[in-house]
């Protein structure tokens, strides 16, 4: 079917699709998100295609390569409907047996079933696994049910219904609904989207733009990537509704070039949306016209900052400018521009479809809805997590994340990406929402959540993030360019044992000027890692400065590796030492030549007897 000319036609088209898509039909959904792809998902999907054909099941069973299911730790994930059986860590060579036993006969293969690393319990169905059980996957949930390259999958599940509804409501009522729902910007600041839209709509102009910020650049963060890769139409639908509301006919998705799969899926989705008449002229016969272009970014972190992003779209060097006049009034090419990030746009269809009252019933009063986090670091279940706002850090890290691996102890969690703060164990019970995180000295950011255990040195963490930020600073303003660089130098001094109490004092003094004096949010928030670690882990800084000691055993200049009497003389560390500086015969206690040791830590990692000590 070509263009859909009216809301009514959309309705009947959807009914036709839904009939074909019965709930009892067998579907094998293979997660082909970036994480699973890295562990060979495409080969697994190809093996399924071949095997289903070979075993004569090609007709009865639908193979659906989908976007990210979130549980990247256990990829490749294979979810089988209608039973909802989830197999994890599936390899191409497992596929023949899975098809012949599970797909054909419904037999459950124990070896592919999830086993809880903490309790040892096995869970067959996806929704029974603690990782999924405690989530509320409003946005991510559809990833497992949609082939992102097929618009019909999205439409069959009600897709573009919100657009159809919005067009019948009129822009004022849509705006009112978004305002009442208090959708807050998921890009980091948490600014109310409705207020942004309203200012943009009311700014006098002959042309307005809408932009989707998909320039996700935080180390370890991949929420927006997975939404774009797994369910691009949700973002597109949100943007069309936004454009209709603010009065725009042209939109951009600014997505980084390092996200080739997202670009590919988005390109396909845009083409299909145009074919169906959701984009282009006279959308659903209402006279409203709008189209979206993709703008690929070069990968500069600063281009995620709204003004730098717009400058980059204009074809200039991506540098931020002052926002004394907001971009909703004078943005891209000086025109009112409404920019929201991927996740914010993906929330819009839900708000319109189900209404503000439903939306505000989820999450907290000040921060309604859910938030997607990329839960990474020293946690058992790394992956993408979507939790209602207000869930505590402890619930996210321990109930969903399964706690710290290998019996380690929780030390800190950094929320908000490289410019977020590190919160200590005392803060585990705070609710995660926009305002509480800021109150506690961190921020929501775009949703990065890096868990650290007791083997993490907080001085080293601050050093790492400052190193990232000084590299990513565009260099336009003095405080950010020189400030982040000098902060990095000072923290490095401490990490290398050259720090004094004055070093800490200078860090604090400089951090205040960088925060107060920088041009854009990259600079003003760049001090968060060092400030928050100084606030919550000051003792650790003092140990580096006063005792020239790194308590976590990380900072190389301050540590020594030693083999204790627990050594059984098994020779493993001796064999693995890259410098060959471990001596000792079989069944004799080994010795590390401290002078030649490069402190790489391999001996400690490979020792089964916990005989390597760092002090």
């Amino acid at each position: 079917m070509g263009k859909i000319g009216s809301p009514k036609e959309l309705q009947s088209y959807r009914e036709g699709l839904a009939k074909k898509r019965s709930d009892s039909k067998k579907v094998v959904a293979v997660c082909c998100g970036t994480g699973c792809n890295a562990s060979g998902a495409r080969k697994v999907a190809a093996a399924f295609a071949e095997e289903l054909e070979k075993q004569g099941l090609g007709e009865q069973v639908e193979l659906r390569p989908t976007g990210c299911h979130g549980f990247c730790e256990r990829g490749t994930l294979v979810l089988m409907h209608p039973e909802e059986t989830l197999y994890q860590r599936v390899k191409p060579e497992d596929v023949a047996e899975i098809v012949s036993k599970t797909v054909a006969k419904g037999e459950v293969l124990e070896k592919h079933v999830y086993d809880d690393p903490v309790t040892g319990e096995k869970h067959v169905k996806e929704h029974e696994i603690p990782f999924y059980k405690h989530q509320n996957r409003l946005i991510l949930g559809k990833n497992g049910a949609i082939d992102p390259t097929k618009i019909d999958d999205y439409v069959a599940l009600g897709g573009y219904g919100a657009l159809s509804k919005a067009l019948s409501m009129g822009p004022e009522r849509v705006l009112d609904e978004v305002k009442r729902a208090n959708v807050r910007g998921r890009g980091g600041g948490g600014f109310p989207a409705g207020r942004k839209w309203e200012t943009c709509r009311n700014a006098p102009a002959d042309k307005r733009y809408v932009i989707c910020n998909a320039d996700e650049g935080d180390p370890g963060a991949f929420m927006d990537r997975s939404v774009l890769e797994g369910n691009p139409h949700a973002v597109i639908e949100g943007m069309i509704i936004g454009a209709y509301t603010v009065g725009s006919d042209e939109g951009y998705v600014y997505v980084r070039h390092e996200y080739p799969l997202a670009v590919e899926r988005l390109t396909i989705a845009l083409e299909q949306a145009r074919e169906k008449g959701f984009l282009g002229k006279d959308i659903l016969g209402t006279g409203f016209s709008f189209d979206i272009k993709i703008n690929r970014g070069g990968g500069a972190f600063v281009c995620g900052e709204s003004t730098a992003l717009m400058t980059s779209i204009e074809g200039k060097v991506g540098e931020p400018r002052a926002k004394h006049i907001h971009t909703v009034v004078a943005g891209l090419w000086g025109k009112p521009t409404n920019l929201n990030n991927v996740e914010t746009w993906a929330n819009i269809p839900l708000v319109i479809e189900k209404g503000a009252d439903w939306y505000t019933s989820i999450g907290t009063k000040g921060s309604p809805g859910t938030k997607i986090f990329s839960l990474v670091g020293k946690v058992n279940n790394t992956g993408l997590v979507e939790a209602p706002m207000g869930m505590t850090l402890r619930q996210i890290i321990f109930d969903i994340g399964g706690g710290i691996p290998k019996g380690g102890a929780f030390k800190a969690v950094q929320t908000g990406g490289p410019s977020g703060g590190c919160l200590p164990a005392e803060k585990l019970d705070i609710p995660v929402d926009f305002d509480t995180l800021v109150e506690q000295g961190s921020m929501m950011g775009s949703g990065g959540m890096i868990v650290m255990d007791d083997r993490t040195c907080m001085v080293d963490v601050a050093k790492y993030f400052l190193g990232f930020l000084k590299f990513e600073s565009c260099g336009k303003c003095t405080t950010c360019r020189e400030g982040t660089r000098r902060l990095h130098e000072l923290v490095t001094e401490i990490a290398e044992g050259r720090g004094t109490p004055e070093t800490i004092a200078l860090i604090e003094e400089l951090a205040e000027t960088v925060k107060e004096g920088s041009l854009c949010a990259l600079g003003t928030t760049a001090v968060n890692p060092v400030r928050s670690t100084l606030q919550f882990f000051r003792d650790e800084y003092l140990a580096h400065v006063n005792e020239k000691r790194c308590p976590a055993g990380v900072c190389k200049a301050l540590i020594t590796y030693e083999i204790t009497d627990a050594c059984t003389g098994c020779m493993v560390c001796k064999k693995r030492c890259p410098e060959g500086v471990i001596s000792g015969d079989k069944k004799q206690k080994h010795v590390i030549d401290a002078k030649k040791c490069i402190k790489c830590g391999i001996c400690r990692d490979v020792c089964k007897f916990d005989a390597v000590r760092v002090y």
Partner: protein
Amino acid sequence: MTVKFKIDGVSVEAAEGASVLDVARRYGFEIPSLCHHEAVTPYGACRLCLVEIAKGGRKKLTTCCNYEVLEGISVVTDTPEIRRHRAMVLELILAEAPDAEPVRRLAAEYGVRTTRFPAKPKGEAGEKRDCILCGLCVRVCSEIVEANALTFNGRGEKRGVGTPYHEASDQCIGCASCASVCPTGCIEVKDTADAREIWGRKFGVVRCESCGAPFMTEAHRDRAVADGPLPAEYFKTCPACKRKALSGRFAAVGA
């Protein structure tokens, strides 16, 4: 439209669109800056013009070169907090450009005579460390000369300024506007009797038919004739001789 607001308690007026910095200076308030010039778009790079602006009950520290005047705002140009931040910024700039005399002078005014940060090491050729990356040269070249011969390169601490890819630029007309606007005088222009060298290029010069002195590059003249309203004859004599001739005519009229 005229906008009324306050600077340090004094009521002031300015035209809409003016920058707080320009207005403050016009009224005699002293606010330091190194990256601002009235002729080009404000940039907000050096961060020295930090002031406190109260708008609708909310106060914040912000640079005022790129802050457009608004009705009813209240600007405070000097507090211990502002001075502290400016002094820190000067310490940062001083470490980055220890050879820049104007920076040292300004720093001294803020009591900054040394910097606690290690100074940028001298280059191999012993070149001066005096560029503060204010971007005035780039803005003048693009907005006023419209040659677009200069650009920033690199990012963060690797940021520098120069011609694209550090290659001699075809766009450059050797006008040296960049050098004349540079606050630290760090752009090298070599003028000899018959040539000018700048940004890795050598330009032939035009001599005044009247006094014989070189007064512009040939490339500059060719651009001016091609793009501007004036005929080629206009560029035969230097501005000084033109002034002299003109004042002679005025003298004749007066007599």
